[in-house]
């Protein structure tokens, strides 16, 4: 599998999915005009990623400072995939980075953590 790298734009985050290192990075803002279209190749990539054998852990670093409702819905779907992978024996860890001043980012992180009790979900203050 190849690295999937998407540069940040005004409305979308930088995304870097590295299969060798097992690190997924999301950084920036997420309020694309069409959220599902934007994330569709990302979700496809991740589903393929978890279809292959891998014993090394996968680390997901999310540093999203602003996102719209459909991005939020999409993150739930994304964490579903990660949770499913966990159930299938993969080692997965999510690091949700937030700024102390950014209340909505922290609250969203808490919502995700609460919804995915068995997924390792770390809330990390920047």
């Amino acid at each position, binding site marked *: 599998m190849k690295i999937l790298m998407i540069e940040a734009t005004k409305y979308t985050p930088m995304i870097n999915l590295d299969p060798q290192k097992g690190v997924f990075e999301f950084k920036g803002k997420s309020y694309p005009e069409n959220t*599902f279209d934007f*994330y*569709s190749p990302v*979700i496809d990539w991740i*589903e393929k990623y978890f279809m292959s054998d891998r014993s090394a852990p996968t680390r997901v670093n999310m540093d999203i400072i602003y996102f*719209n*409702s459909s991005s*939020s*819905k*999409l993150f*739930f*779907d994304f964490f579903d995939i990660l949770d499913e992978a966990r159930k299938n024996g993969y080692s997965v860890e999510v690091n949700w980075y937030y700024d102390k001043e950014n*209340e*909505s980012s922290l*609250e*969203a992180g808490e*919502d995700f953590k609460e*919804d995915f009790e068995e997924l390792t979900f770390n809330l990390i203050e920047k």
Partner: protein
Amino acid sequence: MDIRQDRLIDELQVFMESDLERFKSLGERIIKDIRRQHKIMEASDKRQRKEYDQLQEKLLEVERLNREIEDTQKEVVFTMGAIGESRSKETGNHVKRVAEYSKILALAAGMSEREADLLKQASPMHDIGKVAIPDDILNKPGKLDESELDVMKQHTKLGYDMLKHSKRPLLKAAATVAYEHHERYDGNGYPRGLKGEEIHIYGRITAIADVFDALGSDRVYKKAWDDERIFELFKNEKGKQFDPHLVDLFFENINELLKVREEYRDLFG
């Protein structure tokens, strides 16, 4: 996998032909999804409210700052006018009256309230160029000789040169007024001898406002003309010194102009 919500609908359709276990699992997922949607909506509502509040606050702040800028601008411009006035033989409320007369004539000439206000603020600067005229000429008692008059006349161009570099509408208007308020409709004015509508409407209006005020005010060197004599001059100079249409408007609005003169009368004129 299609990540959209309608995946659930697809599965619901499959379920129609399927078994109870599958229904239970699907039901649980639908419930979970609905709960998530609620969470998302609550979070979104909360943030929207906060963002809107912040936007309102910022807007108020911007409006306040805008007012501050406009007020400062008006004050600076007015002060500049007063400086020009202190260097001229005019006294007291001359610039205030010229400002008000200009606005009345501007509105009568069909300008918008906004543009009339612009001219009102710009017209007090018509004599700003006098700051650069030497004292011995500016303060000379009695008549100026020809060469002195030539120097004196330069105050129009000097004022224009001081203001012309600005891109601000107000200062641009002021530059025009300073440059053209001594032009005559018949082309015999200065500094450029512009004629008729070659002279900007701001210049033509301020010319009337300035002369009307100067003649109607007491000065150290002269008594105020009485109104009949002033009106006679405007009638005679219609189409000569002054724009004939503006002279008509001057007479049509004379009551309002006289009211302003009364309101801003010089106490120690």
